[in-house]
């Protein structure tokens, strides 16, 4: 008696649905892994069970080494945004509001997003590549054999460092962007810096800073946990390191934009 194998569904009409099903399964798995990792990491952090030396090393890698790339991005984002806003507001005769509008955009959206995206590209990808390489070369197995928890050793210091450094980078991006805005407002709209800063002071509320730091902390969480979950759950060879890196960038950036919108809609939606 011959046993029939299950028929493979090659119907082109159902192909898009199969693709969606596959992607949804992978996505749900990854979100589950991220949640487990988050809970375990939080457990270590709440007990202050931290490898401080490694945390400082990671702070240097995540924070200090991103300063230049965030500086350049923030300058040019500030330039472009200020140029657009100046042009429109001068047309309406509202040039004194340039500072307020530019700072609102920078504090509420552009600062956290710029720092988040740049760190996701630079740090998230490198974390995913590093951890996948460690998986492939059995370094993670070596840690387990030595009874060292890979989460405590690899994830906790990275998260603790990112929680401090990513909000710092966001603040830095915000100030650099404001400085770029002042330069453009002066040169394109002939607006004195004092007027620009007066407008900033009148527009910005404490709540805007709170939202800024909330978004930065969420970005840090997304970058570290998605990158680490992808890195710690990838097996295979050199090709998989590249795949994991790409996956980490795609997932972290997508999640950053989605959560940015969620926070904005919860805090600034018209009532």
């Amino acid at each position, binding site marked *: 008696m011959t046993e029939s194998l299950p028929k493979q569904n090659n119907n082109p009409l159902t192909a898009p649905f199969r693709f969606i099903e596959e992607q949804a399964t992978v996505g749900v798995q990854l979100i589950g892994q991220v949640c487990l990792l988050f809970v375990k990491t939080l457990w270590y952090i709440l007990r202050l069970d931290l490898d401080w030396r490694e945390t400082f090393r990671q702070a240097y890698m995540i924070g200090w080494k991103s300063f230049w790339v965030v500086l350049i991005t923030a300058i040019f984002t500030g330039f472009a945004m200020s140029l657009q806003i100046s042009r429109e507001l001068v047309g309406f005769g509202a040039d004194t509001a340039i500072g307020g509008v530019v700072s609102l955009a920078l504090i509420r959206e552009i600062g956290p997003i710029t720092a988040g995206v740049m760190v996701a590209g630079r740090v998230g990808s490198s974390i995913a590549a590093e951890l996948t390489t460690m998986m492939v070369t059995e370094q993670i197995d*070596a*840690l387990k054999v*030595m009874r060292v928890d890979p989460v405590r050793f690899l994830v906790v210091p990275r998260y603790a460092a990112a929680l401090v450094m990513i909000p710092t980078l966001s603040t830095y991006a915000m100030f650099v962007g404001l400085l770029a805005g002042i330069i453009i407002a002066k040169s394109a709209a002939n607006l004195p810096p004092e007027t620009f800063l007066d407008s900033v002071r009148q527009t910005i509320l404490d709540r805007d800073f709170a939202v800024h730091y909330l978004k930065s902390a969420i970005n840090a969480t997304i970058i570290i946990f998605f990158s680490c979950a992808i890195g710690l759950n990838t097996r295979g060879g050199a090709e998989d390191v590249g795949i994991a890196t790409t996956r980490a960038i795609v997932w972290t950036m997508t999640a950053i934009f989605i959560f940015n919108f969620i926070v904005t809609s919860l805090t600034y939606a018209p009532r």
Partner: protein
Amino acid sequence: MQENNADIKKRNIRDQEPILELRDVYKSFGDRQILKGVSFKVYAGEMLGLIGPSGCGKSTIFKIICGLLEPDSGEVILRSNDIGLVFQGSALLNSLSVRDNLALALERRKLSRKDEDEIIQQKLSLVGLGDYMQSFPTQLSGGQQKRTSFARAIVDDPKIILYDEPTTGLDPVMSTVIEDYMSELSNKLDAASIVVTHQHSTWTRTADRVILMYSGKIVWEGSAEQGMHSDNPYMKQFASASREGPMLAGVV
């Protein structure tokens, strides 16, 4: 007739309780059955050679012993949880110095830095790397990395040492050096050791007892000397590296 040292050692070993025992262990990955009822015992002070062609389940046994994998059925009885594993590819953490790589294995003992340094220095000297404490793995040669991996595996004085293909990829001289280290460490630490290898010189020079695996099962067991002259078709083929025999039958 007078007993020689090897016979005395063998008799003493067998008088003890085994430090590690596998009883009828099965393991599958998906539809592929990797281990099909593997059973063996290892005693303190003994070096067991686990040999066989690639893919016969040798490394899976190591992962099960270390707790990295769970067997589907069967029992793994460990009379000590102090296990040191020498990985095939060294598996040193590149971001850490040689000292810190070894210190990781001592972390749970919560020693002072001075005590840690003392132990690390002693173990590194044992493998001839006393001057390399502050070096990073990427600054070491392949043989030095392998020896560092040895030092890391023994830094906490384990009762069970597992060597996963320790001489693969090394030149014959370095292989001999590594094999000598293995025999020396086995004697010094009185640990139960298992070496997974398909390198002829490694199992003939180091193992007190040899187990040949094929297709997830043990097909022969005996001393290296007996293995060299065995009539068992599997052992005969493996020892002579011949194409003729039951292994890989049908492979052109």
